[in-house]
């Protein structure tokens, strides 16, 4: 597996994490818990955007990795 596809896989996992955290933040009855989930969800989103930019850079540098 190439590095680019590994990074892409990581991006997919992060998306999954972000979505689950978001749904937990909405579902949790406890305020404190909901707050923690919301915060971590935002952090994950930041990491996600960073990685997505990196994927774009990689695809620009090495176009053969474009797509899946």
């Amino acid at each position, binding site marked *: 597996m190439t*590095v680019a596809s*590994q*990074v892409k*896989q*990581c991006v997919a*996992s*992060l998306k*999954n*994490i972000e979505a*689950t*955290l978001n749904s*937990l933040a909405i*579902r*949790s*009855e*406890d305020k*404190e*818990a909901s707050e*923690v*989930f919301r*915060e*971590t969800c935002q*952090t*994950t989103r*930041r*990491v996600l955007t*960073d*990685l997505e930019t*990196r994927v774009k*850079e990689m695809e620009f540098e090495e176009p053969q990795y474009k797509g899946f």
Partner: protein
Amino acid sequence: MPGWLEVILRSFVALVILFTLSRILIRKSVSQVTYFEFICGIVIGGILALGSINLQIPIAYPLMGLLIWVTIPHIIGWLAIKSEKLRNFVYGKGIPIIKDGKVLEDNLKKERYSSDELLKQLRHKNVFQVADVEFAVLETTGDISVLLKKDYQPLTPKDMNLQVAPIKEPETVIMDGKVLDEPLATIGKNRRWLEMELEKIGVAIENVYLGQVDSYGQLTVDLFDDKLKVPSPQELPLLLATIKKCQADLEAFALETDNQAAKNMYTNNAKEMDEVIEKVKPYLQQ
């Protein structure tokens, strides 16, 4: 009126009186009642019994007796709430029998409490060695309350400096195969959601004996058919595992890449994910 009929009538009235009295008087179990209240209860019972069987006594007499034996203790109880002195006088006060790890023999003697009795009561509290006790009080009900020395107390998350997630009471949403709509509404879910959750774990609602939803909205069920295995909720542990994997991946990318900017970006993000793990860990580990 024939005697037997009168007995029936009186007994019936006595029963009704007893029923109403026991409802309005106090909400304590028999073991929590003080000596004074206990004796009052016995006397009330005696009056009712005598009044219902002994036909020579005019019906007004037991009623008058009851009036006194019910109202006076009731008033005393009410006054005792207001005044601490009266409370200590009527109901007594807890007496320390072990202090600083030493048995106070004088207090034991005063209360006619033998060493055997003390050991027996300590054993009731799962204490088999007197040396483990820091402080013990003989309560007015005759029980003893025990404070163990700190090193014999059970370990709590606080002792371990562990962070734990707050917990809310679970709601019971299925009972005997029937959906309870009210608790379901309190947690903001509906029948459609419940059907979906049941479908996820693959059981029919008729087969569910008890179903509860925890504070994270996870459904746990107990089935009538005990041979069937129900998967326990996997979402939270799975999420934690995924986050950990991503964090590890990011660290690996940081090591692999030659591009300095990308290296920094990966390292920073790995750190961020590490913080995320620390934050959500107490909530996801159950």
